[in-house]
């Protein structure tokens, strides 16, 4: 799962959102690192809908403009949980490796920091 896809699913996990709401949420979740554009967002939403990971929640007309709200489906929530767990395990493994590196780098021990 690519990062923007992961973040879109994460954005929809808490509540249904419309397109612009998803873009704002993804920007916030990634602390400004991932900024989706309309073209990239709807391509991704279309693929996620085809895979059944998201569904349309409702539609509203605000100021003459269409707002279609999307929400996570059950399989989407499961896919997000699986990916989150995977990333958590990878992060934990990386932290363990970094601790070992620090331990190996203590003064007086052979080898030193690589």
């Amino acid at each position: 799962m690519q990062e923007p896809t992961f973040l879109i699913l994460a954005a929809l996990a808490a509540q249904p959102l419309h397109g612009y709401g998803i873009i704002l949420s993804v920007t916030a979740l990634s602390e400004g690192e991932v900024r989706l554009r309309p073209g990239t967002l709807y391509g991704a939403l279309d693929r996620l809908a085809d895979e059944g990971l998201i569904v349309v929640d409702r539609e509203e007309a605000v100021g003459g403009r269409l707002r279609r709200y999307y929400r996570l489906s059950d399989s989407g929530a499961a896919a997000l949980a699986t990916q989150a767990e995977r990333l958590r395990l990878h992060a934990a493994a990386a932290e363990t490796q970094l601790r070992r590196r620090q331990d190996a780098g203590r003064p007086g021990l052979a080898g030193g920091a690589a």
Partner: protein
Amino acid sequence: MTAQDRHASLLLAYPVRLRRRHGAELIATMLEMAGPDGRPTRTDRWRLVLDGLRERFRLPPRRPLAVVAAVLALLVGGALGAAAGSWAGMWTFAEVPAPGPMADRVLGADSVPDSLTQSRFWSGSDRLLKPGVDATAAADSARARMVADGWTATPVVVSGGGADGRYRRASFQAGNGRVGVRVDSYYSEDHQIDLGGWSLRPPAYLPLVFAGLLLGLLGGWLAATALAYRIAGSFRRRASAGVAAAGLALLALPAASVYVFLVETVPDRSGLGAVEFVHRALGNSPAYTLNWWQTLGPSWLTAPYANKVLLLAGLAAVAGAAIIGRAGRATREPADPQAA
């Protein structure tokens, strides 16, 4: 006209699938991102267009067979594009002058007509030397007349013939940049003198072939992505994918044939009297190559026009796959809130 309508033309960059499902949302989101006045900048509009074009190149995720099919479609598209470019380039070739009047002018004083052949890019005039005219002298005077008319000519060379002198001939070639001519004046008993003409390849031909190749590669990939999404969203996915695969398999041989012709045609041999076109591959069998001594593949492949039959059958199958793949798409619209 609403702001939505004003920007609707930007959506033409998107595949039909996305335009139909998310067109209004794409514009609405761009306007929302533009802030309270809702006026997107030129950069915003360009990004929307570029993202749409990028979407056209994307294949459905996690479908390795679609990737294989798309690569094949890319190559088939390139071959068809190169053939189309070659066909267009053919019209930049000069027509060969009618052999009769030309031979009359060049050889008229020394010979009498025997037979003529004429096509658009080749012509030939076989004539008989008048009694008492020496073959080399006839070639020399023909050359002198052509040079006087502004042609560039090689020197007359006497060659060939065994111990008995049969097929010994005096020959030269001439050209005017657009047409090549060869004169062979024989020492044989029938005193034949032949004038053959052919079109020389104009500089525009190969660029048109390669432009066609590039456009064809592009078209092949875009057609493959569009068809892959259609099949992926269809209820008759297996039937549609099977027919599309059969179509691509049928197209593979004619496409390969075009590439063989392309490789053989790139070195310009028109100076030697060989006028060949890349698109002629499609009027032959997949086993035929321009190197006449070479035959590719089994003998059943050598049926003339086999490539035309394979091409038409393959294109029909791909079109059939697209028609079969239409089934079920409308019901998969995420746009329907009731479906949610």
